[in-house]
């Protein structure tokens, strides 16, 4: 299989063109074709000489790939399936809203974090996506020019694939790349502390942390990561990090009926988040097969939100989208994988 150009940084393209004996300016020309223009083959890079294009084509493939399937919800949400390695699939969600259009990208094939409430974990872990495979999910959907926001909240734990995720962020935000504002990008993590610190240091994108309960013992039952990277340590590092005026940290909180939705949870959240300028994003739980967890009703979700707001915490409820097309992460690709097996 040929190496892919899409997903290479300017530095990598410079090395590559030097090795091929191409002029020094050709790396920047290639990056413009890859990340600023629309081409479907190396041969369309017309400001490169014919010889250069032939040399490139001999060793490289353009590297973009179209989705193999798309399902559209009645609310306009789309779920794209892209083929990944080993005949597995990754999911990408396109979520149109009144004032913004978001793409939710995957960072791994499957996941090894094993969170109790997550469907992706049931696939096991098949591998990391490359930076090219990550940004291809942004570039290769038909709505890409209308996208305003990118969230790394699809399949996989982004900070378990830190090198490729950082590289993808570099390509998305660099002037020679897609030149997107990092303030339009959010990376979500369950809280792998050392990788989170590296991400904060080497990127300007927003951070979202999956919190789900403020109590250590409860979090251990939901999220095995709590055994080695406890929430209190994650919060301690966030509290001491200078996020500046523009960069945002938010906490994701899936509500589970009778488990993490009590007044005691509100009080403890207010206590542990004291001093952190943040927002809590409440998420409705969409039950997965065989789960012991349930979602509270709408009234209970709103009551929980109002209590947090009364404690001075900015709190929103994430709109549920694409429920008719299995849009929650991991559902569709697991279904597809099961069909194949």
């Amino acid at each position, binding site marked *: 299989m040929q190496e892919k150009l899409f997903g290479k940084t300017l530095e990598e393209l410079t090395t590559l063109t030097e090795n091929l004996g191409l002029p020094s300016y050709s790396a920047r020309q290639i990056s413009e074709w890859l990340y600023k223009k629309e081409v479907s083959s190396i041969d369309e890079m017309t400001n490169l000489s014919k010889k250069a294009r032939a040399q490139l084509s001999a060793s490289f493939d353009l590297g973009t790939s179209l989705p193999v399937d798309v399902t559209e919800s009645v609310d306009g949400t789309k779920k794209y399936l892209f083929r990944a390695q080993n005949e597995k699939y990754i999911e990408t969600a396109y979520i149109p809203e009144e004032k913004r259009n978001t793409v939710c990208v995957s960072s791994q094939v499957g996941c090894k974090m094993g969170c109790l409430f997550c469907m992706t974990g049931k696939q096991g872990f098949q591998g990391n996506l490359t930076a090219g495979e990550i940004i291809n999910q942004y570039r290769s959907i038909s709505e890409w020019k209308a996208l305003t926001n990118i969230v790394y909240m699809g399949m996989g734990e982004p900070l*378990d694939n830190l090198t490729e995720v950082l590289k993808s962020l570099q390509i998305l935000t660099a002037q020679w790349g897609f030149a997107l504002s990092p303030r339009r990008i959010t990376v979500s993590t369950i809280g792998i502390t050392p990788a989170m610190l590296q991400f904060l240091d080497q990127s300007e994108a927003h951070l979202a942390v999956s919190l789900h309960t403020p109590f250590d013992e*409860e979090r*251990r039952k939901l999220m095995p990561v709590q*055994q080695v990277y406890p929430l209190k340590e994650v919060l301690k590092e966030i509290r001491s990090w200078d996020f500046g005026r523009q960069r945002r940290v938010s906490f994701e909180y899936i509500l589970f009926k009778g488990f993490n939705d009590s007044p005691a949870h509100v009080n403890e959240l207010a206590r542990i988040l004291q001093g952190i300028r943040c927002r809590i994003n409440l998420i409705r739980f969409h039950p997965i097969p065989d789960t*012991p967890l349930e979602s509270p009703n709408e009234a209970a979700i709103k009551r929980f939100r109002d209590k947090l707001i009364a404690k001075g915490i900015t709190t929103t409820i994430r709109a549920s989208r694409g429920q008719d097309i299995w849009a929650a992460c991991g559902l569709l690709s697991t279904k597809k994988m099961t069909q194949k097996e």
Partner: protein
Amino acid sequence: MVAGHNHKLSPVIVDFTEELSDGIYLFGFRRNFDFIAGQVLGIALEENGPRRLYSICSGEDEAHTKILYNVIDEGYLTPRLSDLEAGDTLWITEPRGEFTDNLNPAVWIATGTGIAPFYAMLKSGLGSNKTLIHGNRFLEQFHFYDEFEAVLGENYIRCCSGEHDERVYHGRVTGFLEEEPELDPSLKYYLCGNAEMVVETRDILIQKGVPFHQIISEIYF
């Protein structure tokens, strides 16, 4: 690399290293810290090099801290660890982690080198009222068989998927659990292994009536 305060690395000298079976290694270094059985260490080959977490595989009071691992060919660290020799320097973090047990009865479930935290617990005096279900592909991979059986007796259950032996359940840990007529929902169930095994096992336990809050998992990240 940016590292939080308790992720800083300190050097240790490797005292011994041994290949226990094909691709499975144990190495040790002199212990100069306290830890709780079940905790992990971050290990790196250089002070600023990539690190990975490994469960400690020795008792709380032993003179040496031991680490059990299997070589992942495509991995970064384990192929290099397998080249270690006595006298080499490694870098470790402080011990950390909350995958710890107590003296209450419980069920331990492990596959492969996921046995390490349970061996640490056994060697720290926590084995007397436990059941251990351990899965491996080959019989030679049950490295601590004698020591577990001496304490747990019939409550040490080996599941071997690749070889037959009359003293061993033939199949995977998940197969064994599926065939169990009932599981005690009042016990704690500790799971350690790869993500797939942990997720599958957890689903089976829940289907068999074990409340999810009784299940504590540690996954190799």
